[in-house]
C-alpha cells in the first residue's frame, strides 16, 4: 500500500494538479480564472509526460563523456511542442478576454450572461 503511494508519487502529483486545474475551469465564473485553470490542467499533462521519460540511473539526454545511460529524450521534445501550443492558447484566450471586457464592460460570466444570454 505504501509502495503504491511512494513509488508512484509522480502520478499522484499529476492527478492532484489535473483535478485542481479542471475544477477551476468549470467552477470559476471569472474568465481569467478559467484561463489560469486551463494552464494548470495543461501543466499537469506535461509533468505526466516528462516524469515517465526518466530512466533509472539515467542522466540528461545529452551525449557526454563517461555516461552510458540516458533518459528518454522523446517526451522532452513532445512537451516543448505542447508548451508552445499552451502559450499560444493562453495568449489567444487573454486577447479574447480583453476584447470581451471592452465589449461588455465585465469579465464575470454571470454578468455577461445577464446582458446577452451568451455565456
Amino acid at each position, binding site marked *: 500500500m505504501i509502495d503504491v503511494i511512494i513509488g508512484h508519487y509522480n502520478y499522484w502529483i499529476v492527478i492532484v494538479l489535473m483535478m485542481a486545474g479542471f475544477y477551476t475551469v468549470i467552477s470559476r465564473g471569472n474568465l481569467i480564472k478559467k484561463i489560469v485553470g486551463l494552464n494548470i490542467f495543461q501543466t499537469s499533462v506535461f509533468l505526466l509526460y516528462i516524469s515517465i521519460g526518466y530512466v533509472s540511473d539515467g542522466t540528461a539526454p545529452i551525449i557526454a563523456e563517461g555516461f552510458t545511460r540516458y533518459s528518454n529524450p522523446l517526451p522532452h521534445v513532445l512537451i516543448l511542442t505542447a508548451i508552445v501550443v499552451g502559450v499560444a*492558447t493562453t495568449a489567444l484566450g487573454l486577447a479574447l478576454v480583453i476584447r470581451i471586457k471592452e465589449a461588455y464592460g465585465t469579465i464575470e460570466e454571470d454578468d455577461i450572461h445577464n446582458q446577452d444570454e451568451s455565456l
Partner: protein
Amino acid sequence: MIEQNLSLLLVVVPLLAAPIAAMLPNGRLPWLLALAVSWLCFILAAWQLMVVIDGDVIQYSLGGWAPPWGIEYRIDALNAIVALLVAAIAAVTLPYALLSIEQEINKEQLSLFYSVFLLCFVGLLGITQTGDIFNLFVFLEISSLSAYALIAMGRDRRALTAAFQYMIMGTIGATFFLIGVGLTYVETGTLNMLDLNQRLQPILEHRTVHTGFAFMVVGIALKLALFPLHLWLPNVYTYAPTAISVFLAATATKVAVYVMLRVVFGVFSNDFVSITPADDLFLLLGVIGVILASAAAISQHDVKRMLAYSSVAQISYMVLGMGFASVYGLTASIVHIFNHALMKGALFMAVGIIVYRIGSSRFKDMAGLGRQMPWTFAAIFIAGLSLIGVPGTAGFISKWYLMLAAIEQQAWPVALAILIGSLLAVIYMWKLIETLFFEKAEQHEIGQGVQQRSEAPLSLLLPLWLLVLANIYFGIETQVLLKATATAVDLLGVADYHE
C-alpha cells in the same frame, strides 16, 4: 518531383502562403493568393485520391528518417477522401468569401484574416495527411487555434464569447487527447499510428490502454460536438462571419469524425472496440443526439442556429454509423462525412446570401424573401431535400446505408430513431421554406439600415449552385465515392457483420 512529394505539398503550399499573405497589403491581393492556393490544393488532393483509390498507400517520411522513429505521412483511401473534401470546400468557399467577408470585416484586418484562414486550412489538411499521432495533435491545435481567431472576427459581440467558450472546451478536449496519447505511449513506446496498432494487439486488456482509449475518445468527442459535448457549436455557427460558418460547418467537425474513425478503428482495432462499451455508447449517444438536436432545431428563431442544431443531429448520424462497427455502418459514416459537408455548406452559403442582402438571419425578417430571390430559394429547397434524404440527392445515400446497417444487426429502435430524425428534419426545413415562400413580405427596418431585397450577385450565387449541383450529382453518380469508401473500410480492418 511533384509526384514524389505529393502528399507533403498539400501541407507545405498553404503553410508557406500564410506568412506571405500576412505581409501583403490589405485589399484584394490576400484573397487572390488564398484562392490560388486553395485551387492548387484541390487539384493535388484529387490527384492523390486517384493514386490511392485502388488500395495503394502513399508513405512519405519527413526528413528522410524512416518510421517509426521519424514522422511519416501515410495516405490511404480514407485520408484522401477527407483531404479532397477539405480542399474542395476551401476552393468553393473562397470565391464566395470575396464579397461576404468584405462586408463583415474591417478593411485593415483583411490580410491577417486570409493569413489565419490559410493557417486553419493547413491544420485541417495536416490532420488528414499525417500518420503520426502526436503530429495529429499538433495539427489539431493549429486548426483549432486559428478557428477560434477567425470566429472572434464576427460582427456581433457575441462572437467573442462564442469563440471563448469554444476555446475553453476545445482546449480541454485537445488536452484529454494528449493524455490519451501519453498513456498509450507509456504502454507501447511508439507514436506512429500503424506501429501503435501492431504493438497494441498483444496488450489489449491492460487497464492503461483502456484509460488511454477513454481519454482519447472523450477528447475527440469534444471536438466532434457529440451530444452532450456539443454546447459550443450553436453559438459558434451563429455568430461567426458567414464564410467562416460555411467553412467550419463543412470541414472542422468532419475532420474530427475522421480522427475518431482513425483512432478507434485504425489504432485500436475493431476487436478492441467490441470489448469496451464504446460501440454501445456511440449508439446510445447517437440516437439521443439525433432526436434531441433535431427537436431543438425546430424551436429556433434564427436560421443559422437552426442549421447548427441540425449539424449536431447529422454528426450524431455519423457516430451511429461508427457504433454499428460493421461494413455498412462505417460506409455510412464515411459517405455521410462527404455528403453532409456538401449539404450544410450549401445551406449556410444560402443563408449567408440572405444575410448579405438583408443583414439578419431571423425567421421573421426574411418572410416572403423567396419570391424576390428565386435562385437562392431554389438552392435552399434542393439542399433541404438532400438533408431530409430524398432519393436522387446525396443525403439519401448515407441514410440508405445507415438503415442497411441497422436492419442487418436488427437494431429496430435505432432504425426507428433514424426515421424520426428524418421526419423532424422535414419539419424544420418546411418551416424555413414556408417562411421564405408562402409568407407575406414585410418591409420593416432591421436596424442595419440599407437592405436590398433582390437577388444576390453572381460571385455569391455561383459557388452556392456548384455545391447544390454536387449534391444532386453525388446522389445519382455514386461510383467513385463508394469505391473509395469500400477501400477505406477494408483498410480499416472491419469485416462483414457476423451473428
